[in-house]
């Protein structure tokens, strides 16, 4: 004596389950890399000027690099923060006066490269809009906005 299923109905259910499983695997496979994308970026806000000769002690490690790139005589660290950037979640670094800020948004990530959208806004006006690829272990500098007698330099260091 044999117990039989309902023929075509069983086949249909099996096919449907297989299709749903396939769709689930495909969707989860493609959503995984973006769902957990998060990068750590070290952000330093430096005030550079030609007034005085003082170099902030915490900038000794990059003083040589800054010296080879710019001709300022004074570098003062305003802020030093570690940002954990999540996909499409903007993070802001506001300057000392509160009038200007840099907004960084992670828009993509590929292994050791993070794609960042950067916006510099001062007094409500967007003065810079750019998108850069930040490699792990490398630096991208955004500078130039004037502040008093000097300029503001935003240094982003990829660490992921």
């Amino acid at each position, binding site marked *: 004596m044999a117990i039989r*299923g309902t023929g075509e109905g*069983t*086949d249909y259910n*099996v*096919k449907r*389950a*297989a*299709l749903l*499983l*396939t769709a689930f*695997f*495909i969707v989860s*496979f493609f959503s995984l890399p973006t769902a957990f994308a998060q990068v750590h970026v070290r952000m330093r806000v430096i005030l550079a000027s030609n007034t005085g000769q003082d170099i902030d002690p915490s900038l000794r490690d990059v003083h*040589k*690099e800054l010296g*080879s*790139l710019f001709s300022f005589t004074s570098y003062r660290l305003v802020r030093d923060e570690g940002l954990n950037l999540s996909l499409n979640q903007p993070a802001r670094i506001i300057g000392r006066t509160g009038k200007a800020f840099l907004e960084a948004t992670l828009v993509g990530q*590929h*292994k050791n*490269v993070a*794609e960042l959208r*950067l916006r*510099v806004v001062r007094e409500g*006006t*967007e*003065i*810079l*809009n*750019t*998108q*850069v*690829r*930040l*490699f792990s272990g*490398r*630096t*991208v*500098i*955004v*500078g*130039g*906005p*004037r*502040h*008093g*007698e000097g300029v503001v330099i935003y240094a982003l260091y990829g660490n992921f």
Partner: protein
Amino acid sequence: MKDSCSAVSRLLEKYFDQEVTDNERLLVEGHLPDCPDCRNELRSMEELRTLMKFPVEEATRKEDFPWVWQKIEREVRRAQEKVTWWQSLRSRLDVSPLFKRKVWIPAAATFVVLLFITAQIILKKTPSYLEASVVEYVESQTDNVMVYQSEKPDVTVIWLFEGPEREQTTT
């Protein structure tokens, strides 16, 4: 008349079992009042049925049917015990029902899709970002912008050159 009696007597059993057609029934019922032989035969059939009815009903009442099912189950169990472990294993590992049900079609499709995705990942060439530009785009509606790539140190600089108006207001 004799012919008619002979024809009716052949139909009598069917008439008794209510299996005759309307015409046959009319024929039999038209004949019975005039034929005592046929009436007697019909009465004999009725008596025989009455005689058989009571003993059969009594026997059915007395019959222990649960006991019959127990006996059947015992026999089925004994038949299953006769199956060797090898036969049992073979029946468990038998995949032929799956082929009959055509489950292999969606299974094969799933396998092919997964294989395709895996192959894409393995064979996919990682884009060489080292060769590509670090700055994808840059725009400023207020100032001039310079992009500078330094090799030593490996730094990319995006520098804003503010216009004279901005400088005057800032200073």
